[in-house]
């Protein structure tokens, strides 16, 4: 149970901080009574969920990881906008230029959370939709398929996000 007391304390603190932040954002106020109620509620949830949330606990707590996280968000938003313009262009073109296919890609990421984030990111980026995950393989539906070869598809779909997620989750 107490194999990693420091790690567990760190996880609990991180979870508590995250819950408090969400609470303050929801309340939109930092009055003392609001903070007090939030602290009690957050402490209760932290106590119940003692092992913390994987999205936080599996992350590395280093400066590099924090920088990569910020870069990841920026890259993600850029890809999200590109993705929408891409789909919008396809939909608005009278000939509907789709070239669909389900391709197989590979990830180097080991952390389960990182894989989930990768799958979600792929779904929200240009023309790709994660259909199935099994171990280190992901099957991705691609509206305008550019490469059927797993190596090439991995390079085009996965590499961008993997670079950042690897720095965050290792």
């Amino acid at each position: 149970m107490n194999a990693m007391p420091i790690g567990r304390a760190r996880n609990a603190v991180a979870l508590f901080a995250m819950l408090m932040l969400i609470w303050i954002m929801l309340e939109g106020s930092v009055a003392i009574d609001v903070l007090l109620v939030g602290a009690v509620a957050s402490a209760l949830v932290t106590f119940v969920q003692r092992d913390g949330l994987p999205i936080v606990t599996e992350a590395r707590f280093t400066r590099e990881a924090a920088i990569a996280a910020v870069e990841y968000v920026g890259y993600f938003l850029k890809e999200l906008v590109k993705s929408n313009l891409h789909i919008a262009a396809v939909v608005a073109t009278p000939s509907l230029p789709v070239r669909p296919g389900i391709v197989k890609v590979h990830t180097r990421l080991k952390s389960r959370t990182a894989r989930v984030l990768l799958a979600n990111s792929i779904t929200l980026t240009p023309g790709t939709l994660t259909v199935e995950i099994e171990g280190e393989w992901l099957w991705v539906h691609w509206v305008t398929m550019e490469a059927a070869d797993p190596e090439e598809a991995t390079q085009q779909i996965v590499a961008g996000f993997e670079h950042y997620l690897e720095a965050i989750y290792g």
Partner: protein
Amino acid sequence: MTSLLAVLGGLLLVAGASFLLLGGLGLVRMPDVYNRIQAGTKATTLGTLLTLAGVACLHPGWTMKLLLIGLFLLFTNPLSSQVLARAAHRSKVAPTAATEVDLLDETKGDGA
């Protein structure tokens, strides 16, 4: 200053609504369930985010709550799309004839 924010908010709302419209158009025009999910997921995500940003400009006091809604949306939207696509594929919903390859089908065929 206030009117500037109001104009920006209005523009963002129009942009968000446009993407949502295109997403709806995509749902009708796309040839099969997988492509429809693609159109639905992407357009609604950015469309809704832009709409939320527009509302934040018009009601600055709501910004934090809107930000939270946006975050939850970013986590849940792709997840539900992925599960829908997986369920469709597992229950053998055939992709459109225009589909060039289905490596998932082949892999599962080789395996168990």
